[in-house]
């Protein structure tokens, strides 16, 4: 072969230009909604309703975002979302570690059926469970409370499978050597197995954080009109209906709601990819 086999599929010259153009075009299309909303959030009130609207980043101000922040009490909403997401993430990691350890390293009666039970719960969608979960939360007095937002999400079958997968790939000798040294289950878990699974745990944590931050259906059922406990996602809806003519307030709220996550994504991109693909590539 005349061409280098290692350069199979590499692009040269015009094809490179073509590829870059296509990439740029699509990137513009994908980013456009975000850009348009961001722009609208950075322009002041009455101007946003003028049209045709300038798409240029001129005459920018933070006043709309500040107004949205005040009117929607976005600071508290962000704190609530953050608190709930952090607690749920920590809880999911812990419960997943424990349950995965049991499945990976322990032998116990009914292990098979219990595993199937876990599998089954993964298939049950939120829409079915919401109605009666709301009643359960109500009878526990957990409506409009942090417990109501946090507790139902503390166990994650996805997390259990993910961590179990990693644990199963740890060399057997490690466990055998440890038990010969008299290391108990918990010590092994916290001092050996968990640290070795850190990348996957990081991915799980990020994935869980993202999911909890973005959750809409359950929070909307458990938090009713109690602004003190609302998360940012349901708070955004309130902004929409609060002032009909100042639609740009919504854009201000959107920027505040989405920005932390965008930053998170950019910083932790690799872990996120690992978390999302763990289920897919293995099949």
């Amino acid at each position, binding site marked *: 072969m005349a061409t280098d086999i290692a350069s*199979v599929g590499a692009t040269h010259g015009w094809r490179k230009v073509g590829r870059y153009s296509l990439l740029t075009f699509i990137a513009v299309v994908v980013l456009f909604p975000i850009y348009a909303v961001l722009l609208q959030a950075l322009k002041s009130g009455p101007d946003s309703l003028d049209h045709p609207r300038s798409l240029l980043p001129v005459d920018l101000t933070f006043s709309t975002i500040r107004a949205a922040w005040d009117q929607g009490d976005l600071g508290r909403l962000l704190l609530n979302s953050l608190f709930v997401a952090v607690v749920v993430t920590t809880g999911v990691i812990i419960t997943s570690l424990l349950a995965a350890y049991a499945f990976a390293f322990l032998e116990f009666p009914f292990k098979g059926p219990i595993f199937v039970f876990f599998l089954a719960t993964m298939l049950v969608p939120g829409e079915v469970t919401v109605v009666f979960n709301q009643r359960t939360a109500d009878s526990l007095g957990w409506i409009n409370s942090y417990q109501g937002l946090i507790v139902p999400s*503390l166990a994650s079958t996805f997390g259990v499978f993910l961590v179990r997968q990693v644990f199963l790939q740890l060399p057997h000798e490690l466990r055998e050597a440890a038990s010969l040294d008299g290391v108990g289950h918990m010590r092994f878990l916290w001092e050996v197995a968990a640290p070795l699974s850190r990348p996957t745990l990081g991915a799980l944590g990020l994935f869980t954080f993202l999911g909890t931050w973005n959750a809409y259906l359950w929070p909307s059922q458990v938090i009713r009109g109690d602004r003190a406990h609302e998360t940012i996602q349901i708070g955004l809806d309130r902004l929409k209906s609060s002032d009909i003519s100042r639609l740009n307030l919504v854009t201000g709220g959107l920027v505040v709601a989405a920005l932390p996550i965008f930053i998170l*994504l950019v910083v932790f991109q690799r872990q996120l990819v690992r978390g999302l693909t763990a289920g897919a590539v293995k099949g």
Partner: protein
Amino acid sequence: MKRRLRDAPAALLMLGTSLVLLGVWTIYPLVRAIQTGHLSCNQTGTRCIDTGWSTYFDVFMSEQFQDALKVSFWLAVMTVPAGLILGVGLAVLADKHLRGIGFFRTVFSSTVATSVAVASLVWFVLLQPEIGVLSDLFSNWIPALKNPGLLRDPGTALPAVALSSIWASLGFTFIVITAGLQSVPKELYESAYVDGAGSFRRFTNVTLPMLSPSILFISVVLTTRALQTYGEVALLTGGGPEPEKSTTTIPYLIYGRNSIISQDIGLKSAAAVLLFLISLVFALVQFRGFEKRVHYGN
């Protein structure tokens, strides 16, 4: 044998929390929903009449449920193939060692950071007939953008919801497919090249089969999301322009603002359980249907 029983207390301790949580918050409500599905109750749920298991059949066959099923089905048809094609296309496009490709990859992944609320509201703002940016730019080609607005026209409302959904899922799809691409062994491409296969043939004979697990995964996830669409509808159209109710999906039929069964927990449960079963069927069909063509392992 001894080891099995010896481990049992430890197992109980470690599995206990998860088991209890899942039992209380996933299995229990499911069972109760199935039980309640054959009841018809007053608004406080204190008085229920047993209407029999035929309730499930009646709810399924009822006009409102069938309409919602059609809406959910069309939403899936609009979002799943498009999502797959875009995801695979973009992933393949960006799967090259070009300078700055990382930036493009980040851009294409970015929508994974949007929640249902954020994505829907972004499109709500964009699609406003009078003050939305899209109507300024494109109303010459698509008059419905301005009058009465894509979200209020019964013909375009559902496609508009689908558009916002496709955009929102793009990042997720891109990330999964990209990871799938990166696990394709280079040697396969090289041997195909040696065999004289052009880039298109390499794509169909190497890339697609190797991507099949990821494609199946995305397909199932996107279908499930389409069937479970609630927040997008609540925020964008409130159930769709009346009287067609063009965007009333099954979840919106159950939990939406104008829900006609909002005060009967029996019918709500029946409809929710039916939704669960339908999702299950769709997932199973996809798994079985693609099983032959999904290429696992090496």
